[in-house]
């Protein structure tokens, strides 16, 4: 059963506007979600009342800012069921989190002949950093293939067993594909990697605001997500890492805030998390992210996940009936996160997005930062509709109606 979050629509100011004189139907949530009033208020309140730098000042505002920032860290640890707030590094977002591991951990640990394993469904942000890190170390990058002509069977887990050799030092994979909607069995993938001694890096950009996450149950070593895809602000994200790993890592950026003792000749590092947050951090957005995590947990993440999955099922059913529409990713009836990618025989993705926009419907068209996957599927681009808690079945009906008109307009 899908929970009813229609009352929560009132919490999101930006949803209540018209686009081309039509009520906005926002279906580009995998790119970024809208922000509830409580998050916007938390951001403003910080700048209006507590604004100060953290960790250095002894005055009242600095202490308030430090308390708020560290409370956000503790909240993020609780959000992920991490053992220790020191396992939470604030970053600009998923991309920066992945880059931290790719640059810092790989520089220290990756050797010629080692293998970094990724999957064929990775977003560029969980692919390009590994390409660069592997090249620098003289290591190889390999990929777990996807199965099925439309990637409908997800990752090829038989191939994974062959690929997970003792040479694999690190396995980076996405929890939920931003293009396919596939939900990968993260705990199983981590368990298999652990058997060969490989560390795991989980890209949780598409899952953090949608599914319950428990890093200890999942058994991952690192996990990355962005605030702005989960009702929080842009410019803030999290890298979770096991404490022992983070404390053994050299900082990837250096400067103030991370040092224990500095002479003209050298410096020693503070422990995690400070050593990985050089310079003044993004305090205000961390505080607003705290409000976003509270907001999502008040609604209940299991209920949010159920709502997403129900909308995805309704969407695949409504779209499957449209002639000439090819759905990519899990088949109807299979588990699918709250997004659907598709291609129309008679209309290019960008024409579809422009047409739907005239109906007030915000979609995404293109390669979704997934160029190698698109090439593999033989598609130049797809259209993606992605859902969040404020979307309804009526939004999907409007989408299907618009798509039928688009096929007719560009067809023949």
């Amino acid at each position, binding site marked *: 059963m899908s929970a009813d979050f229609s009352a929560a629509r009132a919490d999101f100011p930006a949803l209540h506007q018209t686009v*081309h004189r039509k009520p906005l139907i926002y279906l580009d949530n995998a790119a970024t979600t809208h922000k509830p009033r409580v998050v916007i208020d938390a951001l403003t309140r910080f700048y209006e009342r507590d604004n100060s730098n953290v960790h250095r000042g002894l005055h009242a505002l600095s202490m308030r800012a430090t308390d708020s920032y560290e409370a956000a860290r503790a909240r993020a640890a609780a959000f992920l069921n991490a053992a220790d707030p020191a396992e939470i590094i604030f970053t600009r977002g998923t991309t920066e989190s992945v880059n931290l591991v790719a640059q810092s951990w790989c520089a220290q640990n990756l050797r010629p002949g080692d293998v970094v394993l990724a999957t064929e469904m990775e977003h560029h942000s969980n692919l390009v950093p590994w390409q660069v890190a592997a090249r620098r170390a003289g290591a190889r990058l390999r990929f777990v293939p996807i199965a099925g002509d439309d990637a409908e069977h997800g990752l090829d887990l038989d191939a994974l067993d062959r690929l997970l050799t003792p040479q694999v030092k690190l396995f980076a994979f996405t929890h939920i594909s931003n293009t396919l909607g596939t939900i990968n069995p993260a705990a199983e993938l981590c368990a298999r990697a652990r058997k060969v001694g490989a560390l795991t890096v989980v890209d949780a950009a598409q899952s953090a605001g949608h599914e319950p996450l428990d890093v200890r149950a999942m058994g991952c070593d690192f996990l990355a997500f962005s605030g702005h895809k989960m009702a929080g602000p842009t410019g803030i994200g999290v890298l979770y890492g096991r404490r022992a790993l983070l404390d053994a890592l050299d900082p990837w950026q250096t400067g103030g805030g991370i040092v224990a003792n500095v002479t003209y000749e050298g410096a020693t590092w503070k422990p995690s998390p400070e050593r990985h947050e050089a310079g003044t951090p993004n305090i205000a957005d961390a505080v607003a992210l705290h409000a976003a995590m509270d907001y999502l947990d008040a609604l209940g993440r299991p209920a949010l996940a159920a709502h997403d999955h129900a909308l995805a099922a309704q969407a695949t059913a409504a779209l499957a009936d449209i002639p000439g529409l090819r759905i990519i990713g899990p088949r109807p009836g299979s588990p699918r996160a709250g997004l659907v990618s598709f291609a129309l025989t008679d*209309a*290019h*993705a*960008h*024409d579809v997005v*422009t*047409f739907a926009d*005239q109906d007030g419907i915000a979609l995404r*068209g*293109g*390669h979704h930062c997934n*160029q190698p996957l*698109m*090439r593999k599927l*033989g598609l*130049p*681009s797809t259209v993606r509709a992605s859902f969040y808690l404020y979307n309804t079945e009526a939004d999907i009906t409007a989408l299907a109606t618009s798509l039928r008109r688009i096929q007719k*307009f*560009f067809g*023949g």
Partner: protein
Amino acid sequence: MSDFDDLYRDVILDHAKRPRNRGRPPTANRAATGDNPTCGDNCTVHLRLGDDGRVAAIGFEGSGCAISQASASIMTTQAKGKSPAELEAAFGHLKDILASGKTPADFDELSAFAGVHAFPARVKCATLPWHTALEALKQPDQPAQMVEGQKS
């Protein structure tokens, strides 16, 4: 007329659905490929520059939205018989139309792109085939190489 109807005028839809000069002319002696990395549009233009210094044959391959496909089709119909300087001048004419959104008095098919003006993100869809054709003209005279991975 809404912005949308103005963007997808009949001329554009006609060329997008029934593109002219699609494919590589057998006599082509130069080619170039262009793409818009952000949207995935790509375009390969094959052409033959005749001994008189004018485009004797031209065709295009590639994939993209209705605007880019129509623009490629219209570009090829306009390019035949033109010298490189004349083709460049025609592109200048198109760029004026895209920048102003105004339909010039001397109506030709390029005027159909006036509606793209209201959609700044789509301007590069309309210009891609022209950039590619001008690039092809700059290539040395030789049998055109098939571009790897290109799908029509």
